[in-house]
Structure formats: C-alpha cells, structure tokens
C-alpha cells in the first residue's frame, strides 16, 4: 500500500500540522473560538485512546469514559490538594492506569471478552457515575477538595509551567499544549503499533488462539494495551478539567462512552487518523446542531451511528482511502493502455 505514509513521514506531517495549528489558529480566531477548538483537540486525544485499545487491541470497552473521568477527577482533586499542578498532571495519568490495571487484570486474566467485557465495562462506568453523583454534601471530600456530587468540582486550578508555579497557562498556551499532546499521542501510537509489541497486539486481535500457540501471553498483551489506552484517556481527562476549570459526573456518563465509540466507528475502526477525523467532524456537527436548534442532536448522531454500521462498516477514512486507491489504480491502468 503505497498510500500509507511511513512513520517518520507521518511524524513530520503531524509535527508540521501541529505547528501550523499553534501559530495560525490563535492568529485567525478569537479566544472564544480557540476555546471551542481546544475541546475538539482534547476529545480527539480521547478518541485516539479508544482507537488504540479497540481498533488495534480488539478490546471494545463500553465504559471508556471511566478513564477519562478518572483523569479529570484525579487531576482536580490532586491539583486542589497539592496546590501545584505538575504532579497533579502525573496523578491524572497514574490513577486511570492503575485502575485499568486492576480492572484489566480482573477481566483478561478471567478470559472475559466480547459481550461479557461489554457488560462489565458498562456496569463499572455506571457505578462511577452513580457514586460520583451521590457525593454531594460537605462530608464527601478528599483532602481539601469537595466532591460536590451532581455539581462536580468547581474552580479547578489551571496547569502551570513546570518549575514556575506562578505561570498559569492561558487559553492559547493550553490550546498549544493540547495540540502538541495530540500530535505526540498520534505519532507515539504509530511507532508503538509498528514495534514488536504493537505487532503482537495486532496479532492477538486477529487471532487470539494462534498468538497463544506461538507462545505469547495473550492476557498480558491485552492488559498492557488496556493500560496504555487508559493512560491516554487520563491525559485527555486532565486537559478537559483544565479546559473548563471544573469537572462533574457527566464525564463518567454512558453518553460520554457512546460518543467516543461513535467517533471511532464513523472514522474507521483499526485506523488512528480515522477516529481523529470522526471526532472533529461529529463534534463540529454537534456544536452546529445545537446552535441552529432545529433537529435534536441525538437523532442525528444516533442515526449516523446506525447507518455507518449498516452501510459503511469500515468507517469513513478506510472507505475513502480504498476509493482513492481504486481510482488511482484505474488511472494507472488507463495510462498503461494508452502507451
């Protein structure tokens, strides 16, 4: 497939794209619009995390929002308690990873897959949602941070530049950081996928039994995939808490998990760029639908998910790529005939 970029070329393109975004977007758009675009970028990181564990690892979690929510909540709680945000950023990665390690161990070492894995992840996300919602009242606090129940945690401190506790990131800086993290995640995952580890993860997805017979501990690879995905989702959650300066239980909601799944399905399961495209496209569509307020956005999003599963099971990006490939192949054939 000559249409595929190699990793270094992709890294170059991603880096150039990130630089362009960082310098052009704040120059063209006002601060409010930059803030709007920042959420797209943050959610695209979340989309990438599911794209990795589902599209590459073959693990479909129906409660992926748990890790996103854990990232947001643990960042908020740590930042309020520590009074310092660099370590809080790390906490927002460590907590979701640890939880993924426990949950993943519980599931994969019990050989849970498919529907059963769906049932467990969905249930776990509901537990988080219900518990987070029920923590209203002054008695529910972790250290200095009140959990706030349904209302969530307000006035979460913004990230500061490491070593400069007074230098709080402004909107433009936070936007730039999000873009850089998205590009890094994308490139990092690409390199990971083409490493030995990534190839084994892919082979486990393709044929679990065969990989096992070749001597790989399937459970361990699934667990590691799950943890990596959770860590990335945690980063997205941390940025999300920074973006709005608050977090509430809706980060754990089923609708949040569904949304991520829709982005990945629409963009294309098994690719990395697809879910990013799906996320941008659908988030833009959702915002637009909410602005014009004539059709309920759930009708459109739900309809899109069903129709894509029925008619474009590969998703947008692979379909377009294949189409381009076919057209290109036909064109070269014509040329050969002409000669």
């Amino acid at each position, binding site marked *: 497939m000559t249409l595929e970029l190699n990793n270094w070329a992709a890294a170059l393109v991603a880096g150039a794209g990130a630089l362009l975004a960082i310098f052009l977007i704040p120059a063209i758009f006002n601060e409010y619009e930059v803030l709007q675009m920042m959420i797209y970028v943050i959610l695209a990181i979340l989309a990438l995390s599911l794209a990795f564990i589902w599209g590459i690892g073959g693990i479909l979690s129906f409660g992926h929002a748990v890790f996103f929510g854990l990232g947001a909540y643990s960042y908020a709680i740590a930042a309020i308690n520590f009074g310092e945000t660099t370590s809080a950023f790390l906490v927002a990665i460590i907590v979701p990873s640890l939880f993924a390690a426990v949950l993943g161990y519980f599931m994969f070492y019990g050989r849970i897959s498919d529907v059963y894995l769906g049932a467990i992840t969905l*249930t776990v996300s509901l*537990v988080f949602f219900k518990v987070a919602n029920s923590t209203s009242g002054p008695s529910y606090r972790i250290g200095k941070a009140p959990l706030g129940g349904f209302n969530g945690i307000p006035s979460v401190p913004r990230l500061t530049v490491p070593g400069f506790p007074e230098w709080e990131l402004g909107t433009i800086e936070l936007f730039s950081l999000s873009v850089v993290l998205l590009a890094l995640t994308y490139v990092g995952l690409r390199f990971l996928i083409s490493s030995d580890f990534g190839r084994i993860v892919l082979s486990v997805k393709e044929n679990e039994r065969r990989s096992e017979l070749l001597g790989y501990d399937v459970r361990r690879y699934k667990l590691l995939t799950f943890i990596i995905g959770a860590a990335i989702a945690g980063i997205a959650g941390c940025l999300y808490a920074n973006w709005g300066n608050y977090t509430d239980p809706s980060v754990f909601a089923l609708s949040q998990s569904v949304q991520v799944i829709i982005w990945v399905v629409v963009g294309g399961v098994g690719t990395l760029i697809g879910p990013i495209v799906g996320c941008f496209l659908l988030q833009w569509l959702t915002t637009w639908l909410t602005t014009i307020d004539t059709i309920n956005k759930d009708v459109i999003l739900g309809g899109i998910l*069903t129709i894509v599963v029925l008619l474009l099971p590969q998703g947008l990006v692979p379909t377009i790529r294949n189409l381009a490939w076919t057209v290109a192949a036909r064109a070269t054939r014509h040329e050969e005939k002409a000669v």
Partner: protein
Amino acid sequence: MTFVLTAGLEVLAGISSLVLIALGLAIVFGMMRVINLAHGEFLMLGAYTAITAVNSGVNFYIAILFIAPLTVGLIGLIVERLVIRHLYGRIVDTMLATWGLSLLFVGLTTTVFGNTTTGISSPIGAVTIGNANVSGYKFFIIGVAVVTIVLVILLLRKTEFGLIARATMQNPTMAAAVGVDPKRTYAVTFALGAALAGLAGGVMAPITGIVPGIGTTFVAKAFITVIGGGASVMVGTLTASTIFGTVNQVASFLTTPVLGEVAMLLTAVLLVRLMPQGITGRFFRGSI
C-alpha cells in the same frame, strides 16, 4: 412480623421489576444471540405510549397491558426489518447499531415530548399490612410478572411457535432444512421481545418518573441480568433477577438506594467474572 412481610414484599417487587425489565432482552439474546442496546428505549417508548393513552382517556389497565406492548412490538418489527436483520451473527455490530437506535429514539422522544419528567398515577391505593401502609401497586407488579412468566413459558413449551423458536435457536440451518423460515422466526421473536419491553415500560410508568433518557437506567439492569443469567432464557432471567433484586433491596435498606444499586452492579460484575457463561451456563443446564 409486619416488618418481615413488608420487607419481603419489597424484595419480591424488586425481583419482579427486574424480571419484567430483563425478560424481553433475555428472549432476544437467548434465541438470537443479539444484544439489543435500544432495549431501554423500548421500555421508555412503552411508558410514553401508556402515558399518552391514559392521558387521552383510555382505561389505565388497557393502556399499560395492551396498548403499550402492542405499539412497541410493532416498532420492534420495524426495527428488526430495517436494522437487526442485516446484522445477524455480528454481535458487536448489532450492539453498536442498536446503541445508535437508542440515541435516535431518545432524540425523537425529546423532540416530541420535551425533556421533562412525565408520569401517570396508579389507580391502586395503599394497602395496610399490620400497622404499615404499603403501595398496592407492588402487588400488581408481582402479579404481572408472575402471569408474564407463566405465559412466556407456555408459549415456548406448548405452542407450535415455541417449538419452532427453540428449534431455530438450537440449530438455524437444520430448522431451515426442515422447512422453517428462520428469518420469520427471528422477526417474530424480536417483536415479542420488544412487546415485553413495552409491557415493562407501561408497568413501570406509574412508579418512576419518565424522561426520554430513562432508558439507560433500564438497559444496564436488563443487560447485566441477561448476561448474569446465561443461555437459558427463563431460568437464567429468574435466578439472576432473584440474586440482583435481593442484593439491591437489602443493600438499599441497609444503606442508601444509590449504594443499593451500586452493590447490585458490583455483584453483577463479580458474577460475570466468576461465571462468564452465566448462572445457567453452570447450573440448570438445558432448561429454557
């Protein structure tokens, strides 16, 4: 004594609600290996149908026991024709497509009825047990659950449709070879599951406030009950409902309703982990 009776009634009513909520999904999963994630929305639609019918002057019992199941059964038939039929054998794709449908139904209902809580009041008043007043509607729920269970068992065991459905479940190719049309059987089974969801929605309408998004609370409970129950439709649903319903009610009584639900969900997670094939994958094998 009064305490034991009222507590027992609570537990029984909790179990009965779970059975009603899960049964439709269980039949569809057990017979067709399809997880319908729009199941919660089928319940929601049943509830809205019942509320609309009652508000326009229809008798309460006719609305919840006949109009709600028939309407949702019809919707099920359409959904099977347009979506489910094209995805047989692709269990994950079916889940995704029906999850899309669930969003679609929530959006449509919000557009029509608005995002506000509606409800109807039950015509059954309080009943006195000893020195305690309990809601008489609880007896009604238990009654509906028992009658539904008996009817579904009779349907699967004693009728020609039941025979054909069970045969198709066991071996669709062989059933087709002896002249059964599996597509038709699946369509009818799916519609039956939808109708049962509609019934459950109608019955639940007077006791829970109904909002367009209520389906998510139902679908998770139904989903874990079905997965926890395992392959046998009736026995699985009954045993899983009994375990989860009891845990929920007892834990709610000891702590708070929220923690009761959490205890139930955690029990479900543990159960699925310990018995991935469900309760009936290990016990009561071969039952329906």
